């Protein structure tokens, strides 16, 4: 696998984590578990930053090619 494939795989993985976490947060919100929702959102903020950087890497690789 190329480095680009690795990055895509990592991005896919992390986006899946975000997706599942959002679904979980929605369920917890229905149960009014706002504290846990807050914790999930904090985790998501960090993951979103990592994902944005990975997208940047992918775009840079494409430009370089």
């Amino acid at each position: 696998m190329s480095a680009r494939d690795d990055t895509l795989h990592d991005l896919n993985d992390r986006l899946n984590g975000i997706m599942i976490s959002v679904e979980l947060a929605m369920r917890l919100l229905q149960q009014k578990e706002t504290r846990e929702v807050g914790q999930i959102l904090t985790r998501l903020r960090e993951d979103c930053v990592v994902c944005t950087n990975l997208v940047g890497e992918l775009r840079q690789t494409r430009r370089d090619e």
Partner: protein
Amino acid sequence: MARSSSDDTDLQERVQQEVEGTERSTRGARVLIVDDNANLVASARKLLEMAGADVHVAGTDRLARKSLTDRKYDLVFVDLMLPDGSGLDLVNDYYEDLADTRFVLVTGHPRLAEAAKSACPPSVTFLSKPFSASDLMDCLHRAMPAGVAHAEVPSDDPFDRWVGSSEALAQVKRQIRSVAPLNTTVFLLGESGTGKELAADAIHRLSGRQGPFLTINCGAIPESLIANELFGHEKGSYTGANRSQPGLFERAHGGTVLLDEVTELPLEHQPHLLRVLETRTVTRIGGSKSIPVDVRVVAATNRVDQPLVQDKVLREDLFYRLMVFPIVLPPLRERTGDIPEIVQAVLDAWNREHGTNVTCAPEVIKRLEQHDWPGNVRELKHTVQRLAILSGGRITEPPDFFDDFVGNGAGPGVPVGTSIRELERRLIMATLEHFNGDRTRTAATLGISQKTLYNRLKSYQEQGELPAERSTP
């Protein structure tokens, strides 16, 4: 078409029943997630736990192999690419030995998934990333056929609710195993919260008796009603006795009766109990007929340090009749080595029930081990539950009770002859240690000024009474 409010109510009830039915079928499902994506794993774990599953996590191939060797799982999610190996190899290595376990191979590479399918047993399920929460739940339901709900199935192990591996507890278990198959009366002696009812339940389960296991707390029933509860009454035996009613011993025919707090039974009723034990017959209040009963009697008391006969708590004849086979249940302070296991068991049950993932820091467990626990396991359980409620997911602070200091030798357990100055020194040092050297909190807790605390510490230093790590006041 407009829906009526009753339609909505019906629908809500159906949905609720469906949800409850779903939870029942997956409750207790043992799931292992093998993946190194922390965020994905945390959320998937929580979702599965909300469905009642008991979820474990392994971030590497090595940890997954250890988990699969140590425990049985109903369902295992394995990421195809692990930091130290291949998920495919892991599945292939364990698939044959774990015939009852369902494996789900998770991958984000469609091409790799195709290749893996050809190298995998046909029963292995594939889940492609990105997957949704409902995909996760589908896998769980497929792995748990209807009716297979571990937590709902009564365990065959009569000691399934006993936690701890201390020798004191093992000895009690040995005694119970020895006496259970016999018809002997057992007298359980143990402080409040030591598990007398659990012991009686284990005796009943090991006895092979097919009748019910009934319990009565002799201290909780008014004196005027206790005889009626135990022995029953005949119609017309007293005002308001409109019909005959069997007592506890008759209702427990073929089974076991636990007479909890038997020492609270009024002296005037003790001869009647003795007669039941001696003759295995019971006579209802107002009746003249002796009714034969086949009942195993287990009695219990928390008055462990009291001379029961001399203090006229129990009649001598009843005392010796009960003491055929006494079993002393050890207080928690005599098996502090079991505390970490008990804490973990309480937290596991808490997390399962509330869908949380509360953990406890090792230093807190150490503090809990130093406490005397006069209320024994019951007190520990409630303390851990209280800490779980107050924690933000991890218990890092020990409970704030005075007896924290007992373990450090500053409580009532201080030997006679200890000087006030020495007692004060121990209390100050214990408080200081409790607050990790925070002198402001220590002084506030002890109700002294910081200046006084400094002066005391300085004095201890001058006298060489300060431990090395606290030698700078």
